[in-house]
């Protein structure tokens, strides 16, 4: 293949790739930032259930050690052996982590209670209790 053809192909995938990258980041950011799309979060300490106006969004920052309850639909359970991750739909801004096997089915509505902690600069929730909401 001649140099000119390689350059044309390279320019095409560079531009398309960057546009796709920008679109995916934009899409993720839009979903995470919209209160209406976020998984519902309650503050367990105050026991005050959030409504659409007081719902915590990506901009809030809870302190490490504070308790939190998140409700939503299970999108995916990622099993990494010693640790599992719970993906919620709509996406939660927290990484939801369990050190026990997660026995929940994808698509089921769950209520997760756990403690907030920071790991490598990222806020995550360590699950204390998970229950399926009927």
């Amino acid at each position: 293949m001649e140099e000119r053809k390689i350059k044309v192909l390279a320019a095409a995938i560079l531009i398309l790739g960057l546009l796709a990258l920008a679109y995916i980041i934009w899409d993720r950011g839009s979903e995470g930032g919209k209160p209406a799309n976020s998984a519902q979060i309650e503050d367990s300490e105050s026991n005050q259930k959030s409504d659409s106006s007081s719902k915590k969004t990506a901009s809030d920052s809870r302190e490490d050690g504070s308790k939190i309850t998140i409700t939503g639909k299970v999108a995916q359970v990622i099993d990494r052996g010693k640790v599992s991750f719970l993906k919620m739909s709509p996406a939660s801004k927290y990484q939801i982590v369990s050190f026990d096997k997660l026995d929940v089915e994808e698509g089921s509505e769950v209520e997760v209670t756990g403690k907030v902690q920071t790991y490598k600069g990222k806020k995550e929730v360590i699950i204390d209790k998970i229950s399926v909401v009927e």
Partner: protein
Amino acid sequence: MTDVAGSVSSAILAFFAGSSSGMFTGITPGLHVNLASAILVSSAESLASVFSSIDIAIFIVAMATVHTFLDVIPSIFLGAPSEAYAVSVLPGHRLLLAGAGYEAVRLATAGAVISAIVSVIVSPLLFVIMPSLEATLSPRMSWIIITVTVLLVLREKGWGKRLKASVMVLLAGLLGYIVLIGLSMDDPLLPLLSGLFGASTLLLSLGESTSIPPQFVTEMALIPPGRQCVLVACAVFSGWIVAFLPGVGTAQAAILSTLLLPAIQPTEYLFLVGGIGTVNFIMSIVTTATIGKARNGAVAAVIELIPDFDIQTAILLSVSALAAAGLGAFLAMGIGKTASRLLSVLPYKASCGAVISFVTVLIAIRSGPLGILVFITSTALGIIASSSGVARLHLMACLMVPVVARIH
């Protein structure tokens, strides 16, 4: 809205910063992309105040992809031995000795660009077949690795060479076992691989009357489109195998491809090898999302940052890799041209000496005195392998033996 625009800007910034770093790691002999990734992950906590985990992951992916395009340059322009060793070195060196080093870079770049596009196109298929294939092959992994090693030994012509190759496999395997399992040091792969494959070649060049002929920027070596399709298919298949099997390097994948393509020409081999390196990295991203195991140091670093690495993350990072492949192609051809012009001006032996000194200092900093000892031992083994006239890829047993040992 401003937050989202900021996220896009920082992702694009991370992409270009990562690509620039990949340019640096790619053209620096001995500086492996895994090392740069490990340093980034160790400083992720302090970087977290400025960049998100996903930005740092984009940085690493862009860096590793561009690295796969540029590492061909020091291999061709700095690792060239004399004619006496020409039979046991990569075809890129042969083109360099014929004054066509840039041709080698162009062919590898063409293979990498086309294979990157095809691997992204076929990756959805892997999402479907990988989990069941992994369940089938995982219990047999050690036997697959042993079979690959034996096939490569049997590929040598004549029983004398096969015996020498077997001795090389045993020695490299023993060295790899001691270094990776027995000893405790930082970055053990840096002195091990730099000695076996880098410094040994350069030292042989210094000892010989190597002279590099004047280099020309030409486009003489062209591969017919039909043959390119066959080579890309082989590159995608082999690159995926490398991404899937632990302990198997791109060199083994390329040689296995030549088992499928017995009449392969040196120029075609370069096209194939260029493709395999890039495909391997892109496929590693997909493999990690589907089976949860990273077979590549840079992807392992990404998992450290994003433990819940899922399919959406894999799509985002594959797209970043594709864009970085486009940028990597421009950089490889641009720097390849500059390198071929510089080579006619720079004294070759002094350049080799400078490269060896740089790698030695890097090892002393990263791995300490024990690393220097490993570097000296592995360099000696690399020289013995080159002198014995068998392919140095048998020395990749230094990675395969520890993997088999860990499985059992």
